[in-house]
Structures are given as C-alpha cells and as structure tokens.
C-alpha cells in the first residue's frame, strides 16, 4: 500500500481518461485493467478496498460505471471521486456526441459490423477476467466461493434484483460466515 500524494492527481486522472477510450465493451470490462493499475502497480488500494468499491456501486441504482467515482472516493475522498468520474466521462462523451450523427448513417457499413462482431468475444472474455480479479483474493475461503457460486446461480435462474443478493452477502459477511 502506498499513500496517495498530491503528485498523484494527474496520473489518476490520466488513467481514467485512458480507460474511457478503452471501454469498448462497457465500463465493467475495464475493471481488470483498473485493478492492475490501482492495486498492483500503484498500491493506492488493496484487494479488499477494490472489491468493496465494486460491490458498493453494484448495490446502488444507476449505471455500472458508478464504480469509478466510488474507487476515486476510496483513494482520495470526494475530490478523487470527481476526478475519476471526469476522466472516465470526458473522452467517451465527446466522442459519442461527435460520432453519433456519423454512426446513424453508417451503422450498417462493413467496418462497423466487423468491429461489433470482432469485439464481442473480447468483451465477454474481459467480463470473465473481471469476475476472476474479484474472486482470486477469496482463494481458500470456502464459504466465499459458495457465495460466488450461489450468486451466479440465482442471477441466471431467477430475476431477483442484485441489490438483494448484495444485502444477503453483506449479512452473511457481517455474521462472520464468509
């Protein structure tokens, strides 16, 4: 773990600017890379804080990308939340606005279809990797794995809202079962 210093604002902002441009499969697909940078490379957060931030964001309503300001908050408080969110939004929103009209007329072109077809499996692979990055720190904790497996089963087989499963996980954890 390394403390966050004033010199780190710029790298933090730049990291999320880059993630914004790489998020071709939605925001969650960037979590393995964000983990690699924030936890492994910079040491601003540990595994538990990282997982906690993702879990908090999933427990709340709204777009998935809100895990980004929660991570920023865990690193550097409220200013961190806004710097991270601004980084994640500025490049992609600018591009979306300029490209929207272009894309509307050209979405059936061969290039766009090839891009969607080629990137789809990569996006799904990135989601599996994101789950793995969150699950690996739980190695050796049998009950945690039971919880992971139960969540997967419930999500696929039922329409129970994620917030209830997260609440259940929180209770199980608070009771010391996990």
């Amino acid at each position, binding site marked *: 773990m390394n403390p966050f210093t004033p010199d780190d604002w710029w790298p933090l902002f730049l990291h999320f600017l880059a993630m914004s*441009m790489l*998020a*071709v499969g*939605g925001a969650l697909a960037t979590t*393995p890379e964000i983990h*690699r940078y924030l936890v492994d490379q910079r040491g601003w957060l540990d595994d*538990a804080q990282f997982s*906690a*931030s993702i*879990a*908090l964001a*999933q*427990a*709340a*309503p*709204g*777009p998935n*990308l*809100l895990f980004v*300001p929660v991570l920023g*908050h865990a690193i550097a408080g409220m200013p961190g*939340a806004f710097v991270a969110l601004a980084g*994640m939004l500025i*490049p*992609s*929103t600018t591009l*979306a606005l300029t490209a*929207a009209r272009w*894309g*509307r007329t050209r*979405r059936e072109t061969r290039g766009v*279809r090839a*891009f*969607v*077809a*080629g990137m789809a*499996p*990569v996006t*799904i*692979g*990135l*989601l*599996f*990797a994101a*789950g*793995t990055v*969150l699950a690996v720190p739980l190695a050796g904790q049998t009950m*945690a794995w039971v*919880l*992971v497996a*139960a*969540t*997967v089963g419930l*999500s*696929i087989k039922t329409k129970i809202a994620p*917030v209830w499963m*997260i609440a259940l*996980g*929180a209770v199980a954890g*608070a009771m010391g079962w996990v």
Partner: protein
Amino acid sequence: MSSPGSPVELFIAFTSLALQGFGGVLPVAQRELVDKRAWLTREEFAETLSVGQVLPGPNVVNMALMIGDRYFGWRGALAALAGILLAPLAIVLVLATVYARIAAHPMALGAIRGMGAVAAGLIFAMAIKLAPTLKKNPLPLASCAAAVLATWVLVGALRMPMAWLVLGLGGAMVVFALFWLDRR
C-alpha cells in the same frame, strides 16, 4: 410515437430510469423509453444501442447522450447525461462515505467481504448470460470461444495490460471479421 417536450422532461425520464436500474440500466431503459414513453421504436432502441457499443465508453451513457442529442442537440445530451448520472451518483457517494466511516469495524469488514464475493458472482453471471449471444455472431463459434478464453486467461490470470489485449487480440478479431464478412 411521441417525443419529449423539453430537456427537463428528458432529465426527469433519465433520472427515473437510472434510479430503477439495479445492476445495469439497459433493461429498464428499454421498458421506459420504448414501451412506456414511446420515444423510440424497438428497432431504433437496438440501433442506438449498437452504435453506442461501437463507441468506447459506458454504453448506457453513450445511449443517453445520443437520444438527448437527437431531440435538443447538446442541451438534450447534457440533460440526459445529467439525468442518468446525478441522482445515482449522489446515492453511491453517500454509501461510500458511510462505508469509509465504518470500514474499520470487524462486522463492516466481514460485510464488505461478503458483498465482494456477491459482486464477483454478479459479474460472472453477466458474462455467462452474454455468452450465448455469440451464437448469433457472424464469425465461426470456435473462433469466438477461443477469443473469449484467450482474453480471460491473458487478462484474468496473466494480468496483461488491457490496451495490448484490445489493440492486439481485439484488432486481430476485427480484421478477421472484415475478411470473413467479405468472404460471404
């Protein structure tokens, strides 16, 4: 078909759908914008979504921007973006602040460990639910499966930087798709 009367109406519509969306807003967005308000047809929704997916950035945010832009230009885009983000952001930051206060407590630590396990499960489930969509992908299923597996191992286990993976393997898959679509 109808359309929003003002940017304020857009803001309210997107705030309301964002607050109903736990663990992803897309299904709610379709219900609210297509079925309830009829601002878009089902086809227009799918088209906007597919353009949003080609662009980098969070899909739902891109979609909100494009729908807002379509009605009121940049004012609409801004209203839709603010609608989908502001209220959920306030909620999640309150949660984060409360959590930061109690994080040192052993029960809170346990709770957050349990929540982390569930979060991992939710993301795995999302990947598993998306996997069957690859059957409709124009590329051969075996090549898609290989790309999923390679990405999973390279990023999940070997922790390869995502830029290399997206530019390298992603780029190769797009080039392959270009050839494959031409062939047919």
